[in-house]
């Protein structure tokens, strides 16, 4: 039984709105006729109040994404309700998306920079040996992701794409460190870690040192043998 009352109230409101519209129209046409009805009773006062409220209209949010979001004008004190809420929501969303865009740009910049640095380092290590650019280019495109054409994406899709790239490149440090380690792994590219001339030059002193010790060992053996033989000679002479 109690549940019936809200529905009754809603239906009453609807009826009263419709009545009010009709009354407005009738007031314009017959102002003298409505005199007795509006001036008397609580129902009339209620109707008058309802007349002052504006009708509900569909809200259209202007969420077109631009390169930069400008702060909207603060809503006038006269504006109330949903428009004000829509404006504040637009401001917050705009600021957030601007931040996301900036971080995406810096992330891609960082990605590009690291790739450039890695390429420079490899070039210096190899000292002029030819670098297969194709593998590096492939890696760089893989990192930044194949960027779809901007014109085909809507505003919501574009923001999602930026957010995903930012997440993929920077948000997870563990994945990044693993990726870096994979790129630094000797098996990640066909290029040698160091040139043959460099590895040979490092091993040269090691080999020379070992040869020196072997030569020393031979000298000591000869000296000991000579000494033992001279000892025996002296003892035999004595006998």
């Amino acid at each position, binding site marked *: 039984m109690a549940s019936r009352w809200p529905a009754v109230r809603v239906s009453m409101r609807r009826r009263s709105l419709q009545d009010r519209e009709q009354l407005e129209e009738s007031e314009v046409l017959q102002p003298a006729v409505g005199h007795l009805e509006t001036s008397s009773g609580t129902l009339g006062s209620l109707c008058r109040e309802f007349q002052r409220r504006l009708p509900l209209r569909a809200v259209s949010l202007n969420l077109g994404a631009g390169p930069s979001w400008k702060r909207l004008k603060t809503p006038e004190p006269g504006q109330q309700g949903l428009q004000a809420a829509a404006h504040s929501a637009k401001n917050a969303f705009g600021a957030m998306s601007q931040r996301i865009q900036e971080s995406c740009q810096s992330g891609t910049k960082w990605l590009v920079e690291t790739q450039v640095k890695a390429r420079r380092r490899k070039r210096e290590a190899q000292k002029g040996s030819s670098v297969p650019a194709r593998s590096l280019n492939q890696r760089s495109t893989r990192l930044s992701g194949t960027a779809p054409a901007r014109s085909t994406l809507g505003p919501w899709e574009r923001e999602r794409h930026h957010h995903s790239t930012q997440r993929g490149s920077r948000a997870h440090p563990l994945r990044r460190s693993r990726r870096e380690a994979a790129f630094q792994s000797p098996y990640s590219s066909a290029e040698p870690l160091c040139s043959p001339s460099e590895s040979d030059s490092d091993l040269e*002193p*090691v080999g*020379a*040192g*070992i040869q*020196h*010790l*072997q*030569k*020393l*060992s031979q*000298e*000591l*053996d000869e*000296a*000991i043998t*000579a*000494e033992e033989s*001279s*000892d025996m000679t*002296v*003892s035999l002479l*004595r*006998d």
Partner: protein
Amino acid sequence: PSSRIQNFGFENSFCILMLVTVSNLDLIQYINETNRSVEHLVDVLFKKTGSRSWVVVFKVLVTVHHLMVHGNERFIQHLASRNSLFTLHNFLDKSVIEGYTMSTFIRRYSRYLNEKSLAYRMMASDITKTKRGLDGMMRTMNTTDLLNTLLVIQTQFDALLNFNANPEELTNGIVHAAFMLLFKDSLRLFAAYNEGILNLLGKYFDMKKSQCKDSLDIYIKFLGRTTKLAQFLKVAEVYKSISIPGFSVFCIRLVSNITTPRLLPPHKHT
């Protein structure tokens, strides 16, 4: 009796030694050819180290060293099995002028003989008499034994080099005899040391990390000891007491080989 004793080129000092310590006995023959008690002989010799005269004490030490090098292995085995060895770390003979200098050498020399006996106990063999070469003991040893053995050799070698005599201090036959016995030991000990290092370098890249650290430490110390050995050999070359043909040339060549720049370990970054 003196003719029976093996001679290194300094006859007089040994004759004096035998006459003073044991009356006309051929100690080598005593140990080698009879079943007489080595323990009794060692007891007699150790009893003589209680004398206040540096001459008597120094000569006992030289006799013991001589028997360890040239005598039967039973002698050094017995020394290694004894609970206590020479306790001459406080010895000082103030009765004569040269007593102060000689007492210093007595303290150092007795310490070396103790280390030599201890090394025999730890390795169950005399490192100076082990087989050398590619199939020798030091070249074929496994990593764990090698690391332990090299530490033992290092300690004995340090005690030997600590004798640290200058040519002007070798003023009498007794200290000269001690120095030459030490010289003989130094050649054999360093030969074994060098072969151990060669084996170590060959095994280095197959070692565990902890073993690599120990190996690097051993190698660094080996380099320092080779420099000290070069100084020791220079003293021997200057004195020229050994009647081996070409001894001077040998010493010079060995010194130059030791002091030639070789592979140095990387500096530790802090």
